[in-house]
C-alpha cells in the first residue's frame, strides 16, 4: 500500500538565466513559455 501519493510536478527547460519569454506577472500563477 502506498502511504504517499506524489502529484506530477515539474522540476529548472530554463536556459541559463531564464529565457524571459513568459508574461511579466504584474509569479506563482505564471506558466513557462520557453
Amino acid at each position, binding site marked *: 500500500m502506498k502511504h504517499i501519493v506524489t502529484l506530477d510536478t515539474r522540476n529548472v527547460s530554463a536556459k541559463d538565466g531564464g529565457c524571459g519569454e513568459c508574461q511579466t506577472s*504584474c509569479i506563482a500563477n505564471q506558466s513557462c513559455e520557453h
Partner: protein
Amino acid sequence: MIHQYKLNGYNIILDVYSASVHVTDDVAYDAIAMLDEKKDRDEIRKTLLERYRDRGVTDQDIDDTFSDIDELIGEGKLFAEDVFADKAFDLKAKSNVVKALCLLVAHTCNLNCSYCFASQGKFHGNQGLMSFETGKRALDFLVENSGLRRNLEVDFFGGEPLMNFQVCKDLVAYARSIEKEKNKNFRFTLTTNGVGLTDEVIEWANKECYNVVLSLDGRKEVNDRFRVDKAGHGSYDRIVPNFQKLVKARTNGTYYMRGTFTHYNTDFTKDIFHMADDLGFTELSMEPVVTDPKNPSALTEEDLPIIKEQYEILAKDMLRREEEGHPITFYHYMINLEHGPCIYKRISGCGSGTEYMAVTAWGDLYPCHQFVGDENYKLGNIWDGVTNTALRDEFKLCNVYSRPDCANCWAKLYCAGGCAANALHATGDIHGTYEYGCEVFKKRIECAIMIKVAEAKRQAQKAKE
C-alpha cells in the same frame, strides 16, 4: 525544507526545493513531520504504533511508510537541498534587457476612488496625457533594449488610459507596423475602470489586447463605496453593462474582473460569487487593499483570520463549481504544477526596475507603476535610457535570496520575495517584507495547491471507474 498542512480533508506536504507535492495518510504525515524534527526512526516507530494502535497500524505499515519516504528522498522529491542560492547572486551580471513597459498614458481619471494608490492618476504630481510622440519613443526604447526577447509586453495604464484612447490606438498601430521587421511580438494589455468602454473601444480591445483588466469590486454597495465619480456617484450601474458587453464579445485573449477588498468587505467571497453568479463573469481576481494602516479601509490584524477563512470558502466552492460543470477562475489559484515558472523567475520575481519599467506621460522611467512620483526612484527617461544605474543594480539584486526574512519561508519560490513596492511602503526598504501580504499569500498558495490535489484525486477516481 518542507511545508505540511491539512486542508479540506487532505494531508499535504510541499517539498520546497523540488516543488514536489505529496498527499499522505496520517501515519506518513506524522512520520515525515518527526523526520523533519530530526527524530530517531526507532522513536518515530514507537510513537506511531502507540498513536495509531486503535487503527490497527502494524510494524509492517511503518516499514512500508519508511520505504515510501526513502524512495522519495532518493528521487530528490522530499527533503531536497537548496541548490539555487548561487543562482541568485548571478543576477547582478544579468543583461540589461527590458521586456515590458507599463505606459501611464493618462495621469488623470474620470473616477475619484478614494483608495487609489495613484491618487486618481496624478501620482502625487500633475495631471497630463502622454503624446503619441512620447509613446512611440517608449516603444522604440523597448525594442532597442529588448535584446533577443521576442515577446514584448505593454500595458496601457493610468489614471484611466481610455481618457487617451486615440494615443493607445495609434501606438498599437505603430507597434504592429514594426513588429515583423524587428522580429517582435507585442502583447498589449489594458487596465480600465470601464467608464470609457464604447463599442469602438470594445472592438479595438478585443482585437488588439492580449489581456484586459476590468476594475470592479463586486456587489453594488461594495463597489460604490469607493469607486465613485467626481460628483460622488457610484460607478457600478455605468460600468457593469460595459464590462458585460466587452466580455460577451471577447473571443480571443484573456480578461480579469479585478476587484479590491478592504476592511469594509472582508466577506469578499460574496463579491466574487456576485460577479460569477449574478453578472456572468468567470475570470476573477480580488486583491487585498494596500494602503496606509491609519486609513479606515486598511485591513487589520483582526481581519486576517476572516480573510484566511474566506480563501478556504472560495477554494471549496470552486471545486464544487468545477464538479457541477460551471467552473470559475480565480487568478491567485491558477498554479501550474507541471509547467510553472523556471527557477530564475522564481528567484528574481516580476523584474521591476530591470526588465519591467513604468513610463510616465512625460517619458520618465520608474521601476514600476507603484514607484511613480517618488523622485528617489527615478531610473532615467526614454530618450537617455537608464541613467541611475546604481538603482537598477539595486533592483537586480532585489530577489528572494536578498531578503533575510525569507530565508526559512516555505513559500519563497512561489512569491519570489514579494512585491518591492509593497515592501518599501511597509518597511521603508525594497528588500524588506510586507508581512501581512506574506500571510495572505501563503494562505492562497495552500488553497491553490489543495485544489490541485483535489483535482488529481478526482481524476484518479474517474480513471478507476
